[in-house]
């Protein structure tokens, strides 16, 4: 601090310099924001995958998922087999006025029937309209982006790891077999 007033002048200079700079405002409705794929905007339902296991509804910390279903008999696939029954989804609704956007339902789903979508433009004038029924939730599915690639240092997904293990085992097995065969060949000749 050199003298009285230098701080004032420094401040005035900052605002003066910014006067000429471009604004950083994103003019939202005209310029839609670019959201990363992990963005938690809205939950989409891939209805076909849902088996009505109710795990999502039970895990939800704010009880905002409503599921109704009934059992239906499915004609046996093979002749003479027993008739089987499956759960048919009647209603799947998420009340976004209650939802805390934690994503536990999506984690809990064992069949990947729920996905995050970065869409966020579903404000309503009536709070009741914030309860999205399954048709609407199914529509969101079209907006679900592909997940981002992972960091090179990330552990391989367990599918790859198991597949690799299996492949290695198979390779080892076939190698052993081949070795045996050559040995056999050798023995034969």
């Amino acid at each position, binding site marked *: *601090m050199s003298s*009285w*007033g*230098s*701080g*004032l002048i*420094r*401040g005035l*200079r*900052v*605002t003066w310099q*910014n006067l000429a700079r471009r604004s*950083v405002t994103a003019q939202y409705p005209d310029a839609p924001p670019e*959201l*990363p794929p*992990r*963005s*938690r905007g809205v939950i989409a339902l891939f209805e076909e995958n849902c088996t009505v296991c109710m795990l999502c509804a039970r*895990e939800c*910390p704010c009880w905002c998922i409503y599921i109704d279903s009934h059992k239906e008999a499915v004609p046996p696939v093979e002749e003479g087999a027993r008739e089987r029954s499956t759960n048919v989804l009647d209603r799947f609704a998420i009340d976004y006025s209650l939802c*805390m*956007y*934690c*994503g*536990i339902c999506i*984690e809990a789903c064992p069949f990947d029937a729920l996905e*995050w979508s970065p869409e966020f433009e579903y404000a309503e004038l009536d709070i009741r309209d914030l309860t999205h029924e399954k048709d609407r939730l199914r529509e969101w599915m079209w907006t679900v982006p592909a997940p*981002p*690639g*992972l*960091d*090179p*240092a*990330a*552990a391989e997904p367990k599918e790859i790891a198991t597949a690799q293990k299996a492949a290695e085992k198979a390779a080892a097995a076939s190698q052993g077999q081949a070795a045996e065969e050559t040995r056999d060949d050798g023995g034969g000749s």
Partner: protein
Amino acid sequence: MAEERVVGVGAGAAGFGGYDRGGGEPGGLATQDMVLNIGPQHPATHGVLRLRITLDGERIVGCEPIVGYMHRGVEKLFEVRDYRQIIVLANRHDWLSAFSSELGVVMAVERMLGMEVPERAVWARTLLAEMNRALNHLMFLGSYPIELGAITPIFYAFRERETLQQVMEEISGGRMHYMFNRVGGLKEDLPAGWLDRASAAVAAVRRRVPQIEDLIFGNEIFLARTRGVGTISPELISAYGVSGPIARASGVDFDLRRDEPYLAYPELAEEGVLRVTTGEDGDCHSRFGMLLEQVSVSLDLADACIARLRSLPQGPINQRLPKILKAPEGATYCWTENPLGINGYYLVSRGEKTPWRLKLRSASFNNIAVLPEVLRGCVVADMIAILGSMFFVVGDIDK
């Protein structure tokens, strides 16, 4: 609204409140103290804190913080949520330091389970916690000047926040409530190229933060309003359990990152990246300066974490958890250095899916408790300067 009638002589009688009720004849020269309710809806309380202030003219003779307008019973809710659901709630009491609050919960559970967290997760957690700290401090670096009437710094602060929030959103999907911690690590691994973008964001923020400093920190009016105002002595700090940047601004050299290290902080402290700075004056100005200082330390720490994450070998970022996670019977206390101060969780488990009790010690509650001591004798304008410099989040007070 109740009015306190204080019998006395002229303006000097004000310092007198509460004593003279028996003496003196009523009538004569009477002054009336005015009771002013600051809040629960007042622009300076950013939230619903209410201060019941007794004024003599513009001078404060008494102050009573009335809390609880935003009480959500979070400790009771914790008892009926499993450990994944608790994270959702834990990041909501202090919405400006969501990541650090999550961290306390998962660390407590991990300690109970005796679980080892993968190294990459430890460094990523440290990185995110420090970015969260910078985000939190930037908020107050913007909101404090606005309470003093300078309207511009908050926009600069929000530009920086936006830069950081973008990378936070990219990794976690959330801009405030990250919900990214899990027991045993993080929810997902880092996206490809995220480290580059994170370090670019950190560099951009480091480049532009000095603008806030130039704009306001050396300003003579700002100095006049904050120097020597709201001084808190170290004794008062320890008496009320004030912690975090406020305590350090008063010269209380206490930082859990260094004094009871967790995450990757011991290593960072060894490398000398983690610097714990303390102020001397304990006034509003040094508290504000403390935030500026901590932002730059946080950015350094973030850079160190990014560098480390780049060099770490391939590995997982979380532990495989059982379907049903039960903490073994017992109790533990886990405290972390949240941006606003000490955030502690006392976890008592009876071996069930949910904790039997999870006590939350939040920083803001204690930080605000000291207000009546500090405010007495100030003028209304000082009250705003002091209140703003106590850096609190109402959700963190009321839980």
